[in-house]
């Protein structure tokens, strides 16, 4: 029941915000924010009462939908999906608050779309039926098209077209794969599907996830989408929606196709390694703030895929931890980029600079987020990367060496970003009128940063409370090919 509430509370909230003729935008926005906060409270309550010691599904609900096809409304939470739902509600709350504070046009419609997006994303993480998973997956895309296409920057049209083409192609392949898998298994219930040896069905799923993550070279939509979206939508896209793709690998590709995964490991690892280095190099040369964050996001998502395809305890735990950390990091970075662009009217790194002087809050928050993003040892991002690379090391030391190179590159592009914004003399677009972060902005971004610091202090909060607890069942035993 609680899982259903987690999914439909924001959707109902969205409807409410859309339908009621609000007297002011402020009232509509405030209501949306209250809904997001209520969702957050539901999740915190759920997380505190979750039984982390035992593996398996919790809070599950199942109602037959098309019984002759074996389709049902079936939802529930694994411990690792609980964490991803947590990421979704935290980042969405921040995004709604930020959008509310920024005063977007048609506030009610806008924030309603974000709430709807939240519900659909939570649905993806909770669905236990393949067709339902697909329905939520598509439901997640539609608000995004509108959010980018209507509220985006000057280049929003091209950005939206690219995004639509890529994701539609991906999701249609997935739909085919869903149908094929369901028909061949005789059921769409994920608990009963069991393992499958079909390369084609695996590739259908992999295509959708690869586009959404994105895995190199399926990232053509990413730079424009991340540049043209409003900052809070970019935060959701890179922070949360991309994780739906890696979650798809974790929940569908790995457990249902273990034998195919083993065959396809090397090609996928090659793509992901290329993507890791490629993204890092482009981030190092990107001319603008969002470009750096976008390409670093590309690199990080490929790193997470590397961890997943290690398919061992270390790689999977690391990938999950990195999904959470990167979700928070990139959300915070995009919101900060929004704050900077608001002040300087540009994200061009050549025109920025010198913002640290007299703006201690902005400088402190940006530096803290930035050094976590570059995975300084001791941070939760470091913990995640360490586990990922340690996991892939056992599959071949070469992968880990590529990852180690990326560690150095990450330092290069993140420090470049920090310096270009904060240090040296003020850039041409930086005037004294550019204020420090306002309390409202701080109240949105600080909780994200505080969560990151807490996770850095205790990354085992995630790794120790996922994959069915320890040491009874080790992580990777869930993903081994049946003998």
């Amino acid at each position, binding site marked *: 029941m609680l899982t259903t509430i987690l999914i439909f509370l924001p959707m109902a909230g969205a409807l409410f915000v859309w339908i009621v003729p609000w007297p002011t935008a402020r009232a509509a926005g405030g209501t949306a924010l209250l809904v997001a906060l209520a969702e957050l409270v539901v999740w915190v309550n759920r997380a505190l009462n979750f039984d982390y010691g035992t593996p398996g599904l919790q809070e599950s609900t199942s109602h037959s939908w098309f019984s002759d096809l074996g389709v049902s409304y079936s939802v529930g939470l694994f411990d690792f999906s609980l964490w991803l739902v947590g990421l979704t509600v935290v980042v969405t709350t921040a995004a709604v608050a930020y959008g509310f504070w920024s005063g977007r046009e048609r506030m009610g419609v806008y924030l309603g779309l974000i709430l709807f997006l939240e519900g659909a994303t939570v649905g993806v993480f909770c669905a236990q039926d393949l067709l339902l998973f697909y329905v939520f997956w598509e439901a997640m895309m539609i608000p995004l098209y509108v959010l980018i296409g209507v509220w985006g920057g000057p280049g929003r049209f091209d950005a939206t077209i690219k995004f639509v083409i890529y994701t539609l192609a991906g999701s249609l392949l997935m739909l085919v794969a869903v*149908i094929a898998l369901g028909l061949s298994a005789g059921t769409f219930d994920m608990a009963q599907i069991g393992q499958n040896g079909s390369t084609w069905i695996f590739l259908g799923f992999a295509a959708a996830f690869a586009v959404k993550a994105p895995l190199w070279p399926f990232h053509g939509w990413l*730079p424009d989408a991340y540049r043209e979206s409003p900052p809070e939508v970019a935060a959701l896209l890179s922070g949360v929606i991309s994780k739906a793709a890696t979650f798809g690998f974790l929940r569908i590709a790995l457990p249902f196709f273990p034998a195919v995964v083993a065959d396809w490991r090397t090609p996928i690892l090659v793509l992901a390694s290329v993507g890791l280095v490629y993204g890092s190099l482009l981030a190092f040369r990107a001319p603008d703030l969002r470009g750096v964050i976008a390409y670093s996001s590309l690199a990080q998502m490929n790193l997470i895929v590397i961890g997943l395809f290690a398919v061992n305890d270390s790689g999977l735990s*690391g990938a999950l931890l990195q999904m959470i950390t990167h979700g928070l990091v990139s959300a915070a970075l995009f919101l900060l980029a929004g704050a900077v662009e608001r002040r300087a009217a540009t994200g061009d790194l050549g025109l920025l600079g010198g913002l640290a002087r007299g703006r201690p809050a902005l400088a402190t928050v940006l530096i803290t987020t930035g*050094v976590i993003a570059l995975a*300084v040892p001791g941070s939760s991002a470091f913990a995640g990367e360490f586990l990922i690379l340690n996991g892939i090391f056992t599959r071949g030391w070469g992968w880990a060496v590529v990852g180690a190179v990326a560690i150095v590159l990450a330092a290069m592009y993140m420090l470049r970003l920090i310096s270009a914004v904060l240090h040296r003399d003020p850039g041409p677009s930086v005037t004294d009128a550019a204020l420090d972060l306002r309390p409202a902005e701080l109240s949105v971004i600080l909780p994200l940063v505080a969560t990151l610091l807490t996770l850095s202090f205790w990354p085992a909060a995630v790794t120790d409370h996922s994959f069915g607890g320890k040491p009874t069942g080790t992580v990777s035993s869930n993903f081994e090919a049946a003998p």
Partner: protein
Amino acid sequence: MTTAAWIALFSPAAAVIAIALAGTRITRSLAGLLAAGSVLVSFICSVIAFAGLLGESPDERSHSSTLWTWLSAGNFNVGAQILVDPLSVFMMLVVSGVGFLILAYAVGYMDGDAEERRYHAYKALFVFSMLLLVQAGNLLLLLAGWGMVGLSSYLLINFWHFRETAVAAGKKAFIMNAFGDATFALALFLLIQRTGSVDFRDVLQPGVVEKGSAVAVLVALGLLGGAVAKSAQVPLHTWLPDAMEGPTPVSALIHAATMVTAGVYLIARTHVLFELAPAIHDLAGILGGITILLAGLIALVQTDIKRVIAYSTMSQIGYMFVAVGLGAYGSGLFHLMTHAFFKALLFMAAGIVIHALSDEQDIRRMGGLGRKLPFTYRVFVIGALALAAIPPFAGFFSKDSILGAAANAGTLGWILWGAGAIGAFLTGLYTFRLLFIVFWGEPTPFAREHLHLKSFEGGLAMAWPVAVLAVLSIVGGWLQVPWGWSLVDDWLEPVAQSAEEATGLTFTFSVLASLLLSLAGIALAWRWYGRASDAPARARQRWPWAARTLEHKFYFDEAYDLAFYEPASRKAAALGRYVEQPVFLGSLGGLASGVRLASRRLSSVQTGYVREYALALAAGLAVLAIVFILVT
């Protein structure tokens, strides 16, 4: 005892949080006092832990304590774990003791800076990170501390972030150290693969890898990569001189007394792993020997007061690397301690000079300051004598302990001894060159014009920590006296058994020869710089290529730019221009504009494109579905 160690660790962290949260609600000097006070608490706790260990028999002196599980994955667990043993307590005492003195000095030094509170918070953050590094009970937590000292070093190097050079120097330091972090991490992956653990008690065992095997070599090499980067040894040394862009107390604390010696600590801590790979163990000593000479030579031509001392730091850490590379762990750490005293002293004295001259650092504009700054002059002389290893100052005992060990370590030992002996000559020369140029002779016009003293040299707040360090630079060496006692070796014996030093005639020869060479260096410095002389200018004219090579620091920076930075930068730019733009962005960009044109023609509804695409794709879907079902 472990409780005291935990308090020592978290006290500076608490200060960071307090200063950050308090913001402008507390005065600047209160922020400084908070930071220094928290480190004083750490020092007191370290003394308590030390006393606790002292009360136990030597083989019982090792206590591990875990507060919570920091990271886990399946059966792999890493605790937030500290280890209290003779080595970690030794380092805690040095870090928190010298750290406290420098933080107290910084309250005076930074007085009036616009962003003083941020400075003190960073400084406390550094001490926390450094204590984490030396107290960590497993290699992963050690790596965490390792990275965080690098981070605080970065933050403090570019503390004056409006200076272009400071920003560049900070980045350079961080990225070079990130390289070391990466090789360190790779070594850990190998160890985890072998042992499933990073706990010192599991990993630092003689049987963990086969002696001399490829794995043993790679593990040691990875750790050495980290150590060399952090300790600014050849070939990863070029960041340290640039790091002098930070405020002087930063140079004293991080880039002389503590952080840069972390590599020495790491090798001593993981000496078991180095002993399993003798080739890499020797390599550590060889790199140290090379650094002694290289840095000593470059120091001869530097004109920035802090850079001279920075090169001297590299050179002195070279001695420590020689020591730990040859297995003389006690001697290496003894030199680490005395060096912390006299090098911090030299930096802080230099800081008083820089302050008095309105932030001037170029020694060519200084001169004759001995009479104007008598206190600074005296403590600088003490520091210089200690650095040049003249008895009875501290450096004499620790350096001769290292050379004595080298003299007993076979052919390689003698080669490194030779490097150390020549290094002793160079040390005498560059140290007293600096001393004579800055403090002797007549005051330059610049010095006369700009010298201003508010009160006593730097004020009492800055003077008393300097005085304490001056005393320590004399008596600190008496812990280990040739033909007498060796307290440091004995104390560290349960953790790392030191190699035997030479005895009898060999040792006497070693001591006398290096002492004579030091004195010769000082004498030459006096001939060239102690009085009016055109010898340096003539030498420069005679060997212009030599002067150029030294001034370009053996062209390391230029070579790295050419070999790494430029190609990486060019590749990244080329990728963007020739791959990303045309392949991924351009082609689809064209597609998008095509769609826009088509949709304008076909329909007056602006948003028609989505529907059309959906329709087209849905038709394709039907075909695909049939194909999939047929194939599978």
